[in-house]
Structure formats: structure tokens, C-alpha cells
């Protein structure tokens, strides 16, 4: 297996964050009753004409700047022709050979260390509709709500060589686009999608192997699984001397395998030609300058801030920075409670767990920065213990109550009643005589055991520091 090197390139489709669709005034919004978010223009009725939404061009330029792309001063719009029932005009308005963004590059931190991934180009285009298949009625229904939703297709060079690098690249691009304020990049809502191109190259070979394209990848998990599966499949074929067919394959999420969709022979001839209904886009130096001034702080600048100024380690900083919603939240929290590491740690371990499980959304956290700052502070200052702090967070998500309120209700507040602690400590010391003797004879480890017993009896509500002091005091008396 090691004698083959995977060569991976990605086509990322990011939905651009505009109020209205790319060629008509329909509002862009996720969901909605079928065929209620479309009009004669995006449904391609006879006689209607597309008018380019200039906001889309602005978003694309900003995205290009964020991705280190060169911005094309003269860019044209083309038609990509193919018949499919979700494509109402039977052509997609896209860009073929003069995209808005030309070559760029992004830095990633993958499983093989830092790496630069080159971007071939990025172009604007309209999304198609959606087909809903009804196996019982044996019919297919078309929903045109997504028709005309503005997309930016970002085409990378084949610079990745593992599923992990592909994941890191997608996360990086998605972060950059979120920071630039041009896309929400929510895979679960379809505002970020990716197609994978993958081939295997023999370690000694100069030329690339036969390429396979994988479509229908709906989550980061399926992307990683599909790449790993495909590397394995292609390696098997190559080692047994079987040819790899140039084709488009579809990932089957249930079975975790890729299956052939169409071969090169059946590939569409898209008959690209210049879209006659839309004049070319001319982008001036002033346009670019103006937009670059509007660009918010970028991901690399925040990375610098977190590692250099706040003293976070690189891994934590990277995780916080990756999703703009999380990073913005972190910034708000440390403004209130500037314990940089503790806040970062709590976010990385606890909040992101709920985000990854899909229980909460990184840019719509169900609690305020103030509430979270209070919680971290309570935990750091031993007003509640660490485990209970986690439990409080869970209840904050569920009940939307404040941390102090929850702590009181649940009885999580640390007990500073030294009399009670003293009582418990002396009962432990008198019950566990063997352990006490052992400790006094030099078995220092047993101190932990005695601490544990005390904490247990105090039901985790006493400040460990206080227990420790009292326990030490009691034991010293016995020496």
C-alpha cells in the first residue's frame, strides 16, 4: 500500500451569503415549502432573463482575497448545457474559462505537517434544484427552491495526499470563507459541498494515475470515509494489475462504499459558450481595494493573536480559530474573563463536543458570552468542581438558565463550611486506620485515596484545596 501515493484534488461548492439569488430577486433561505422560493426567472420560464446580482460578484472577490487568489479583471459568464430535471433551463449559468478568481493558495496543517494547497481557480455559478424520489408512487418530484442560489466553486490543484489533508483543507477554506463573511459553510444545510478527485501515483512514477471523481458527499465524515475507501479500492486494483477506469463515482453513505455513476465515455459534453444574456464582469483596481478594506480580520491574524498574545498552544488555537462563530465567541468571552487558556480549553473540550454532535450550532450558541465566562470563572475559582461545571454547561444548553442559577438549583456550589469538612475528615481518618498508618510510614500515594474518600462523602461539593489543607493538618497531628 505504501508504494502508492494518493493524489487528491477538491472542488468545493460554497453558497455565497447574499440576500437574494444570483439572477433574480427571490430571497435565499434554507428550507421552505417546496417550490415557494422560486419565480419565473429562476424556474427558467420562456422570455425571462437573468440579471447578475452584483453582491455575488463582491462576495466572490472577497472570497478570492481570503483564499489568496488573483482577481480576474475581466471575467465572463458562460452556459453549461445538460439535461436534467432539476435544472429548469437545461443549462447552468456558470463560468468556464474566465472565472472571477484565478490561482491562489492556502496553508493547512494536515497529518503530515504544514502544507500549502494551491487553488486553481474559483468561479461563480447558480445552484440547481432538488429531486425527490418517491419509490412507493414510483415518481420523481422537482423542487426548484435552490435554483439560482449563488455558489462559488473553488477548484484546488491535486495537492493533497490523504483524507486528513482533505479534511484540513476543507476546514481551512470553510474558515477563511466564514471569516471573509461570504459564506456560512454549513455542510448539514448544503451551503458547503465538496466533490473529490482522486488518483494513485506509484512512488517512483512521474505521471499521475487515472483519476476518479467522487460525488454525493454530504458531510465531512463521508468525505473522509470515501477517500479512505477509494484509496483502498484503487490500491487493490493496482496491486492486482487491474486497470482503474476514469469515471465518476457516487458515495453510498449507508454502505460506506463508492459505486460507479458514469464512465468517461458517458461524460457530458457541456457545450460551454458565453452566456449572451449577461455582459462580462469588469472588476477595477478600485473595486478590489474597496472590498479588501471591508474584509474583516482573517484567520491567520487571529491565529497569531491566540498563539503569540494569548499563549494558547497551536493545536487549541487552530481548533478555536477554524470556525468563525466559535472564534468570535471566544473573543467575546475573554473580553469578560481574560483567562485565555482556561476559556480555550473549555471551548475545545466541551462546547465543540456538542457542536460536533450537532446539538448546537457554532454560530448560534444557545447561551451568551457573559454566561459562559461566568461558568468558566466558577470552575476556575472552584466555586463548582470541574465535573459539575460540565454538567452545568449541559443544563445551560437544555434549559437556557444561567450557570449560577443552575449551580444553586442542583446543589453544585462548593461547600466552604470547614466544620462539616473537618467532621468528614476526622471520620475518614478514624475509619481508614490502615491507610493512615501506611501513609505515615511513607506510602505517599495513599494521601490520594484518603482525599478521594473525603470528596466522596462531601459529594463533590467541597473545595478540594480546603479538604487537602484540613486532611494534611489532621495527618500531621498523628505523626
Amino acid at each position, binding site marked *: 500500500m505504501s508504494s502508492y501515493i494518493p493524489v487528491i484534488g477538491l472542488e468545493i461548492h460554497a453558497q455565497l451569503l447574499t440576500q437574494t439569488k444570483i439572477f433574480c430577486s427571490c430571497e435565499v433561505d434554507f428550507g421552505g415549502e417546496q417550490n415557494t422560493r422560486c419565480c*419565473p426567472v429562476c424556474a427558467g*420560464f*420562456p*422570455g425571462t*432573463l437573468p440579471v*447578475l446580482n452584483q453582491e455575488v460578484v463582491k462576495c466572490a472577490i472577497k472570497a478570492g482575497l481570503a483564499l489568496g487568489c488573483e482577481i480576474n479583471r475581466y471575467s465572463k459568464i458562460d452556459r453549461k*448545457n445538460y*439535461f436534467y430535471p432539476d435544472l429548469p433551463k437545461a*443549462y447552468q449559468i456558470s463560468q468556464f474559462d474566465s472565472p472571477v478568481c484565478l490561482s491562489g493558495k492556502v496553508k493547512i496543517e494536515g497529518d503530515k505537517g504544514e502544507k500549502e494547497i494551491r487553488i486553481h481557480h474559483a468561479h461563480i455559478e447558480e445552484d440547481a434544484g432538488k429531486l425527490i424520489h418517491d419509490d412507493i408512487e414510483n415518481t420523481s418530484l422537482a423542487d426548484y427552491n435552490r435554483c439560482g442560489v449563488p455558489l462559488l466553486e473553488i477548484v484546488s490543484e491535486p495537492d493533497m495526499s490523504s483524507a486528513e489533508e482533505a479534511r484540513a483543507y476543507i476546514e481551512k477554506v470553510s474558515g477563511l470563507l466564514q471569516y471573509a463573511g461570504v459564506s456560512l459553510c454549513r455542510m448539514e444545510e448544503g451551503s458547503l459541498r465538496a466533490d473529490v478527485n482522486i488518483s494513485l501515483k506509484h512512488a517512483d512514477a512521474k505521471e499521475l494515475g487515472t483519476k476518479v471523481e467522487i460525488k454525493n458527499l454530504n458531510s465531512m465524515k463521508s468525505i473522509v470515509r470515501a477517500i479512505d475507501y477509494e484509496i483502498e479500492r484503487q490500491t487493490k486494483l493496482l496491486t492486482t494489475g487491474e486497470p482503474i477506469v476514469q469515471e465518476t463515482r457516487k458515495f453510498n453513505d449507508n454502505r460506506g462504499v463508492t459505486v460507479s455513476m458514469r464512465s468517461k465515455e458517458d461524460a457530458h459534453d457541456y457545450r460551454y459558450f458565453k452566456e449572451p*444574456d449577461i455582459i462580462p464582469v469588469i472588476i477595477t483596481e478600485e473595486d478590489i481595494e474597496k472590498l479588501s478594506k471591508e474584509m474583516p480580520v482573517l484567520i491567520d491574524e487571529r491565529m497569531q493573536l491566540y498563539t503569540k498574545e494569548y499563549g494558547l498552544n497551536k493545536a487549541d488555537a487552530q481548533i478555536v480559530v477554524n470556525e468563525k462563530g466559535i472564534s468570535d465567541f471566544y473573543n467575546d468571552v475573554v473580553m469578560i474573563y481574560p483567562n485565555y487558556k482556561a476559556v480555550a480549553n473549555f471551548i475545545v473540550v466541551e462546547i465543540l463536543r456538542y457542536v460536533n454532535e450537532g446539538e448546537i450550532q457554532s454560530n448560534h450558541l444557545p447561551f451568551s458570552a457573559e454566561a459562559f465566562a461566568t461558568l468558566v470563572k466558577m470552575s476556575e475559582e472552584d466555586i463548582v468542581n470541574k465535573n459539575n461545571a460540565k454538567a452545568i454547561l449541559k443544563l445551560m444548553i437544555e434549559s437556557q438558565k444561567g450557570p449560577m442559577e443552575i449551580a444553586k438549583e442542583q446543589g453544585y456550589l462548593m461547600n466552604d463550611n470547614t466544620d462539616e469538612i473537618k467532621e468528614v475528615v476526622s471520620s475518614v481518618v478514624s475509619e481508614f486506620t490502615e491507610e493512615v498508618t501506611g501513609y505515615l510510614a511513607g506510602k505517599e500515594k495513599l494521601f490520594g485515596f484518603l482525599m478521594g474518600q473525603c470528596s466522596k462523602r462531601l459529594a463533590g461539593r467541597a473545595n478540594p484545596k480546603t479538604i487537602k489543607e484540613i486532611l494534611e493538618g489532621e495527618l500531621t497531628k498523628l505523626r
Partner: protein
Amino acid sequence: MELCDRNIAELRTLLDSKELSSVELTRYYLNRIEKIDAQIDSYITVCADEAIQAAKKADERIAKGQAKALTGIPISIKDNMCIEGIRTTCGSKMLESFIPPYSATVIHKLLNEQAVILGKTSMDEFAMGGSTQTSYYKKTKNPHDLTRVPGGSSGGSAAAVAARLSAISLGSDTGGSIRQPAAFCGITGMKPTYGSVSRFGLIAFGSSLDQIGPMAHSAKECATILNTIGGYDCNDGTSSRQEIDFESLLGKDIKGMIVALPKEFFEEGIDKEVRESVLAAAKKYEEMGVCIEEVSMPSLKYAIAAYYLLSSAEASSNLSRYDGIKFGYCMPHAKTYKERIERTRREGFGDEVKRRILLGTYALSSGYYDAYYKKALYIREKIKEEYNKIFERCDVMLTPTAPTVAFKRGAIENDPVKMYLADICTVTVNIAGLPGISTTCGYDKDNMPIGMSIIGKAFDDAKVIQVADAFEKDFIRKAPSL
């Protein structure tokens, strides 16, 4: 004088002075349509009720003294412009049941002035043709000789105006579809500069070539109509922001102008009587103090090929949306998507449309793109350059509108190559996006009208109208005897 022989300026006076109401005028035209159109077959749909309602509203507006140029004037519309709630067929079975939920911008502009829409006129299917004989509905006849074609694709509009079945009309012109039928029917028709009239709501044929334009009895009327329907439209991304006052040069002296006579437009293939008539018109211009200068357009020999590649390529894409899913004809009993789309298109489109879709698809296909479509784009640039050069020196250009007068029905419309070649005099204007107007310059031995075209540089529409108007002032037209 019969009401139908009045021009729209005279009708305006009659309406504004309350000597005539718009309802009376509308009823008059509706009666004529009922009596005469059975011979001509110019209308696919007559909107009698809507027209009377519109006329009533027009009369109310006139009574308030708020009439605009076209308030209360009966107009017909080529059936490829969408009118909300009125069937729009594009001359095709494919759109037999299509009732658009929106109106074209030009329709909004007409209705804002309370013009009275009488109905939708016949046309070659999807505007592809020069005879109006490929219409799925009405195969229109030429009012001057019912055995002849009216030209096309706006043949219904041309015949309706010539036969006085509407005062004026709107047509569309992709390669001569306004000017050639205007010439064949002895009226005036103009294709304005590309981008000067919104295409929103015009069912697309060749998007980079299509333009809506007026068809009427004079250049002056055309100017009036254009001032109503023209102007920037935010719903058309190719709409121009350059303002044109189409009437601004009317009546101004043309003395001292240089009129270009491109020699390639007078060579073989052009009927002798047509050539002589247009050259006689050139003489008349000379008498008016204009300088005639022979020029050359070497790329003309490639123009037909380039035009049919460009227009068919765009058409093949524009017509892909007719798949039987959302609107129009749908083959009802298909079992699969593939079967439905194939049979819908097989049954819904006529032969000429299919021919162009095949031609255009082929020209854009990988492996053929460079040899055909790309070369056609190159010729397009060449033609533009040659026009630019001519207009550096010359004010306008004078050419025949068509190589012949109207031909007999059934004579050549089944021979596609002959039909395509007959567009030689008109296509370069669309290829270069220029304004061109056709007006009658004479009649042949059979009393069939002969058309000549005045072509100008982009946005010189007013000048083109001025030059045509100068000729029309001393020219007496023959009305068809019906």
C-alpha cells in the same frame, strides 16, 4: 379617408379631440379582423374583450387630457412576446397551452400608455424562418398577393399592418425577421440598436441577436413607437443605459450626408428589379443632396454561415428548457424522464426548429466548437470591424432588404439552404448589433413591394429613421386590394 388609412398622429388628433373614441376605433379594427383575417391568417389569438376593456380605460385617460403618444391606439403583438394571462405560443405546438404569469417589458410600457392590444400575430415557429409558413397555427398570406408569403418570421405582424388589421405592430428581429416581412408586405419595420429595447418577456431565439422593434406604415410611426417601448430596463442585463430620442432628427435636412452603398449587396443573387429599385432610391437621395459612396464589406460572403451557426447555437441552448416538465406541451404517457423529454420535444417542435437545434448543438459540441462556433465568433468580429470602418466616414448604409420580392407560398420554404441564403441582406445588422430600418422603395412588375434598408452605427437609430423618413415623404405606397 378610411379610418385604417390614418397614421397614428392623425388618430391621436381624432382621439384627443373626441371626434373618435378608442372604443370605436378598437371595434372598427376588430370588425376588420373578423371580416378580412380569414384570407390573411395574420392573428393566432384575437383579444377582443381585453381590447375593448383597454380602449375604455384609454378613453377615460384621454378624457382627463392625459393621453400619451399611443393611448387608445390599436396595436398587434407578435406571438413571442409574453402578455400576462394571454396565451403566448411562439408559433409552436410546444407552447400551445402556455399562459405566461408575467408580461414583457415592452407590453408593460404599452399598457402604461393605455395602448390597445388587439391580439397576437402569427410567426414562424420560435421565430425561425422567413415565410411564416412554419407556424403551427396560421400560415399567413401576403396581403398584396394571397398566393405569396408575407415574409417572416414577423409575417403575421407585417401582414396585419399591411392589411390594416391593426394600426401598428411589434415584431422581433434576429436575422431580419422585422425588416424582411416589412419589405415583402410594403410597410416600414425597424430593428433598433441591440440593447435599446428590453428583451425581457421576449421568448428567446438567439439572445445576442434578438431585438424587438416596431412595424408600421412609416419611419415616423416607428420612431413614435420606439420612444414608448425603448429605454433601459433593469430586468434585462444587456439593456443599454444610453438614452435615444428616436424622433429627435425627424424632418431635419439630410443634405451633406454620406450614404454608403456596399457593392457586395448588389452583386449576383440580388434580383434585377430589386437592385434597380434600390439604386433608383440612391439616385433620389443624391437629388436630396446626399453623397453616395461605394464601399465594400468583404466578409459578407461568410455572414450567412456565421449567422446560422451563432443563432442556432444560442437557440439550441435557449430551447433546451422545453422539456415538458414545467410548462407547455408535455407528452402525457411517458414512463421515464428520458422518454418524456424525447417524445415531448419530438412531438412539440416542428422540422425547422429541430434542424436548427441539431445544427446549433453540433456547432457547440467538443471537437467541432473550434471549427464552427469559434470561427463564427471570429467572423462576427470581422463584420463589426468592417462596419466600424464604413461608419468612420459614412453616415448610413443603403442596401436591399431582401434579394427578391415576396415569393410564392410553397416555392422555397421547404428548401432550407435557399431560405437561409435569402437572409443575406439582413443578418449582418444583427451580427453587429446595429439599427436597421426597411422601407418600401418601389414595386416590381407584379406590383409586389420592394424594400430597401438603411443601416446606421450603434445608437444612431434617430439618424436611420431620419434618412428613411426623408425618402418616405415623397413616396406613394400602394395599399393592397382586399
